[in-house]
């Protein structure tokens, strides 16, 4: 599964989110490829991934992308990340 983590600048919060998503995926024995992007360029690249994760404040910037966009309130809460990933596991 390809997962895109999106934040405002692509170097801060999305990087922290990527670290936690990779950790959770490893715990779930899931094979994922996690990339990061800033909100501006994410609209162009989002459709190459299977799932987009971002914060509630930035979701509006991603309107119109064809893949699911899920928002996360607590980037440090592995359970919140896990609950979302579980929805997308076959």
């Amino acid at each position, binding site marked *: 599964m390809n997962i895109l983590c999106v*934040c*405002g*600048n*692509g*170097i*801060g*919060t999305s*990087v*922290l*989110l990527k*670290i*936690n998503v990779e*950790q959770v995926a490893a715990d779930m024995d899931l094979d994922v490829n996690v990339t*990061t992007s*800033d*909100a501006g360029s994410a609209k162009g690249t989002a459709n190459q991934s299977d799932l987009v994760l971002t*914060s*509630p*404040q*930035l979701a509006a910037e991603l309107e119109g992308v064809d893949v699911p966009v899920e928002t996360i*309130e*607590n*980037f*440090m*809460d*592995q359970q919140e990340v896990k609950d979302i990933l579980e929805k997308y596991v076959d």
Partner: protein
Amino acid sequence: MTATLQEFLPDSSFLLDQSAEDWRQAIRLAGEGLQNSGFTTAAYTDEMIATVEKMGPYIVIAPGLALAHSRPSAAVLHTGLSWVRLSTPVPFGNKANDPVSLVIGLAGRDENEHLQVMSAIAKALSNPAAKDSLNDAQTPEAIRTILNG
């Protein structure tokens, strides 16, 4: 890892138990820590504030935690972080995660250089016991030791 933490979070990056009147001042403190360590120029502080003004308080990524940062720019001299622990938490306008008691300032030249330090921070802050210890730690050295895991 010890050397990396020392490099990206030196003593001069820490402002512990400081007071801030509002979120702007809290971010200014984070900018001060980055400047003290020679990571950024003063302009970066304004860029971090502008990021929140433009995109909202999305930098408050967990309860009580703001990751103040902007994009790589001429104001970033070296990749590094600052660590501001507030004596009184301040609201940033993020309903789910306000108020903020810890502001981590981040200046990055790209998305990779700080990955190791960010991993250490993510690991510590997603662990409730380590998070409590970070609140109680008295010195920069003690905080780095906790981040070292």
